[in-house]
């Protein structure tokens, strides 16, 4: 079904209650959809119990809801089986899980290939693994527009590349990664591929089988769901070969004083009480997303993104970061020499425009692009022309105000 931005906006309680707000920071956190909030509320007030261990009806209801949430995520990602869905506390936790559990299968001298465009959450865990275990890190460089430069992929992989871990879409430039090219090169080298989908999921359902990767990570709060929950999808055969990461309740077959035997995936990777209501809320958000006309939404997001880029390029001295042509996510970052992003954001806030300024947890990328900080506007399905216009007006005001 195709919906207007206004009718979509109506479905987000925070936005519905703040008609004056021009929320252009969905890349940091998307607003929560009514259905997700209702699902959390419903779960906590009708089905709250611990999962996987209780036999009374309330516990069965909790179990059922949690299992159904796993199924919803599997459908959203087109995973082969719900057993490939591991609930975590967020994308960062999912990425750390892989860095530790898949990392435990690596040997000194094995290589992990990242890109310069990674969010710190897909960068720091691998640096820590390198310092802990003596693996090698290599980095796919970016071109002047922040796109991954895949020209030297085979050399970058070398002979011992075991994993390529890259973002699907940059949280700074909106550049989409050419996943197919990376997967093809990785398969040739016998390496696995991890895709950080944190920025992709708010722009529509994904297909991990078509992407043909081995791991996929994302966060609930970036796709209209609750915070405190995220997902690691892993190919069954890869998950099966990995030891657990966190130890605790629910991930074991048997614990004795001497040794412990692990449960199968996904339980093996879900130590302790999981974020149950949050998973249920996330599933509600994803189920809602799966009813939408994504072609229409993509078209509108793209149109707004172009308008934004056109408007910004008219501001003297302003430098747009990221690719200006071709397919890109509606994330637009820019640098205004002499104006600091925090001052820009502050002044725009006076016009109720919510922007983010700083290094966006992507210092290596910003360094490569030759800036220390930048200002970012990010567009989601509930944004419209008025939001873009307000940003434009606000920037004009900021230029006068701060000069």
């Amino acid at each position, binding site marked *: 079904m195709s919906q207007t931005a206004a009718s979509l906006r109506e479905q987000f309680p925070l936005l519905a209650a703040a008609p004056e707000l021009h929320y252009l920071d969905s890349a940091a956190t998307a607003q929560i959809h009514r259905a997700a909030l209702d699902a959390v509320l419903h779960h906590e007030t009708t089905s709250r119990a611990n999962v*996987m*261990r*209780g*036999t009374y*009806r309330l*516990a*069965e209801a909790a*179990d*059922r809801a949690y*299992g159904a949430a796993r199924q919803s995520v599997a459908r959203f990602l087109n995973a082969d089986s719900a057993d490939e869905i591991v609930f975590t506390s967020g994308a960062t936790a999912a990425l750390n899980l892989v860095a530790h559990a898949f990392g435990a299968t690596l040997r000194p001298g094995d290589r992990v290939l990242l890109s310069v465009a990674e969010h710190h959450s897909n960068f720091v865990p691998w640096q820590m693994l390198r310092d802990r275990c003596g693996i090698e890190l290599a980095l796919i460089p970016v071109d002047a527009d922040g796109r991954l430069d895949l020209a030297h992929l085979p050399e970058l992989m070398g002979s011992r590349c075991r994993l390529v871990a890259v973002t699907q879409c940059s949280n700074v430039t909106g550049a989409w990664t050419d996943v197919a090219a990376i997967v093809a090169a990785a398969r040739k080298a016998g390496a696995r591929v991890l895709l950080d989908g944190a920025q992709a999921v708010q722009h529509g359902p994904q297909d991990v089988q078509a992407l043909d990767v081995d791991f996929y990570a994302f966060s609930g709060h970036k796709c209209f769901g609750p915070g405190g929950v995220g997902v690691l999808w892993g190919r069954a055969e890869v998950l099966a070969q990995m030891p657990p990461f966190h130890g605790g309740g629910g991930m*074991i*077959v*048997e614990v004795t004083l001497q040794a412990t035997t692990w*449960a199968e995936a996904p*339980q093996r990777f879900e130590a302790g009480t999981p974020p149950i209501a949050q998973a249920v809320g996330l599933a509600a958000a994803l189920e809602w997303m799966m009813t939408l006309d994504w072609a229409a939404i993509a078209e509108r997001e793209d149109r707004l993104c172009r308008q934004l880029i056109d408007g910004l390029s008219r501001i003297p001295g302003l430098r747009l970061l990221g690719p200006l042509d071709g397919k890109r996510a509606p994330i637009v970052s820019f640098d205004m020499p002499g104006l600091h992003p925090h001052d820009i954001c502050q002044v725009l806030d006076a016009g109720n425009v919510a922007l983010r300024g700083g290094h966006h947890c992507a210092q290596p990328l910003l360094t490569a692009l030759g800036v220390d900080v930048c200002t970012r506007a990010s567009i989601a399905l509930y944004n419209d022309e008025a939001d873009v216009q307000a940003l434009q007006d606000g920037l004009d005001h900021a230029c006068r105000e701060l000069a």
Partner: protein
Amino acid sequence: MSDPDALYQDAIKQFARAAHGHGQLENATGEAKLNNPLCGDRVRMQVAIDAGRIAAIAHDTRGCLLCRAAAALIGVRAAGQDAAAMDAVTDALDAMLKGVAPIPVAWPELAMFEPARAYPSRHKCVLLPFHALQAALRNAAAATSSGDHRDQ
């Protein structure tokens, strides 16, 4: 809401109490131990295979009434079956518990587990002995083909 009391039909209690097939085989050609991580229940299944069919079976089961009844039903019924037949029965039982299929005609006694449909957390209790038997049969086949006796 369904009534948990209905779950404990007399048939289940009788099978569990009778514990048909409980014991140990001297001449086992395949064996498997499985346990349910959620409750710590354990089943050890032993089979003696002759010409591809179960000639004798024994189990040692520590578990709830559902688990013990399922093991006892196997103790009565499994002799004479081959691995393919047991796979079919197990799949049919699984489908019945999930509510996507009727009671397997091959083993009508499985009807006693029908009320367990309403309690997904108990499905594993019923299935554990069946899964242990499947594993024992696989181990027996592997032992035969490799000329070696393997435990799982």
